[in-house]
């Protein structure tokens, strides 16, 4: 059996992989519930069926996969396709008492760490949580590896079994079934709920559950999935000269031009875009200069700039937000390192702005720098 690592050791990672038809590299995005038209979410799976304001609810929505084209984002229009996250303290209730089947897990077994560097620490990103809620996200420091400080996560299941949702036995994530009558302090609890659990427990008093949600006009952010879509291509090409003139364009064109070259595009497809995918770059690629994270990398002993770009794809890959991070260096040969990552943001206005400001850009630049330093 394959030794699952990083995000695939977490319940959320396995949920995303499963919902993506086995392709964890499709990743996920996070919507705020109010942005897709949910102003109030009743939690019928808890005693008392409390409601929580939509501004406190986030929806993790995997990229999923269209059966015809590997990279095509599948339509998402229903609550059942998402995983809902609610900080317990946002629920107006004294204690959380699941009324149906539920499990309790530590945070580190549910949410992947934010860092894309495996040794980079164990904090889950606040991007999992709704941005406009009543809870101060900065105080929800989600320490993952320090289990003694980790928040408890309560996961109500049903109508499906735990294994159907996460593709693994509860013991895989050290999950314990909640005892009858067991309650939890809202201040120390994070609720993580499959969308179909929410919709199937929708109380009559709350009216009809929404038949569809307006995902198409809402702006999500990349789910901090530990870089599951990251790929990197390394090209080593000779500094070929004839009569003193360079004859290898890969070694002398600027990076804007380099990214348009077939030799580079082909390896980028191998590294993440899908070799058979006919895609265009609808928006961008736009060069960016993030303030955070490393600005240079060490490549074969020489310090060199990290050049970053963001764009939104079209064609078969419509709506994928992508980041590209390039490190180049010269010795006897010209070495080009291109890290790329993609996120199923969707064909929505402002997608490139979300990507430009995303923490994924900072994490990707760190990983590209680490990768360049290890090349030999």
């Amino acid at each position, binding site marked *: 059996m394959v030794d699952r690592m990083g995000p695939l050791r977490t319940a959320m990672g396995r949920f995303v992989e499963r919902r993506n038809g086995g392709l964890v590299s499709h990743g996920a995005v996070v919507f705020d519930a109010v942005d897709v038209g949910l102003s109030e979410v009743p939690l019928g799976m808890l005693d008392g069926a409390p409601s929580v304001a939509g501004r406190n609810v986030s929806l993790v929505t995997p990229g999923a996969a269209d059966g015809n084209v590997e990279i095509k984002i599948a339509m998402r229009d229903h609550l059942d396709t998402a995983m809902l996250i609610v900080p317990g303290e946002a629920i107006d209730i004294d204690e959380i008492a699941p009324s149906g089947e539920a499990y309790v897990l530590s945070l580190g077994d549910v949410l992947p760490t934010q860092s894309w560097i495996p040794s980079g620490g164990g904090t889950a990103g606040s991007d999992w949580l709704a941005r406009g809620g009543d809870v101060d996200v900065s105080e929800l420091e989600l320490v993952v590896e320090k289990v003694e400080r980790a928040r408890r996560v309560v996961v109500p299941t049903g109508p499906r079994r735990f294994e159907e949702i996460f593709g693994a036995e509860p013991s895989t994530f050290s999950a314990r079934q909640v005892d009858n009558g067991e309650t939890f302090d809202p201040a120390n609890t994070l609720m993580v709920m499959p969308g179909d659990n929410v919709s199937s427990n929708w109380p009559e008093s709350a009216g009809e559950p929404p038949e569809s949600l307006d995902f198409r006009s809402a702006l999500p952010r990349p789910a901090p999935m530990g870089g599951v*879509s990251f790929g990197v291509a390394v090209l080593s*090409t000779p500094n070929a000269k004839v009569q003193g003139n360079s004859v290898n364009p890969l070694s002398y064109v600027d990076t804007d031009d380099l990214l348009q070259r077939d030799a580079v595009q082909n390896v980028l497809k191998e590294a993440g875009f899908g070799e058979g995918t006919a895609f265009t770059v609808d928006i961008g690629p736009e060069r960016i200069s993030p303030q955070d994270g490393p600005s240079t990398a060490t490549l074969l002993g020489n310090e060199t700039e990290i050049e970053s770009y963001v764009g939104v794809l079209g064609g078969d890959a419509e709506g994928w937000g992508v980041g590209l991070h390039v490190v180049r260096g010269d010795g006897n040969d010209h070495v080009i390192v291109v890290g790329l990552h993609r996120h199923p943001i969707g064909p929505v206005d402002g997608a490139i702005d979300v990507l430009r400001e995303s923490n994924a850009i900072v994490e990707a630049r760190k990983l590209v720098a680490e990768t360049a330093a290890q090349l030999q």
Partner: protein
Amino acid sequence: MGSNNDRGQEQLVRRRPLLAVLGTGTAAALAGCEDITNQSFEASSVGLAADAQETLQLSELASESTTLEKSAADGNVSVSITTHTAVYSRAAALGGL
């Protein structure tokens, strides 16, 4: 490290007027004829060692070489440029796709 095989400048000078007319495609086709200069360049491979792949959680998906044939110096030189590429994936290293 690049390698280079140059067969001399005098031949280049003599052939230039003819090859300038024939164009680059013809020059490439003539590579191997006695008056054509052939030069080949090949880069050294650069990549991540196995322990680095494990540390970074990046698995090698592909490693290959591609050779570009072109003409240079006004078509007087047939050039062969070999590039090595390696592609790594985070998802594959995690045990997924």
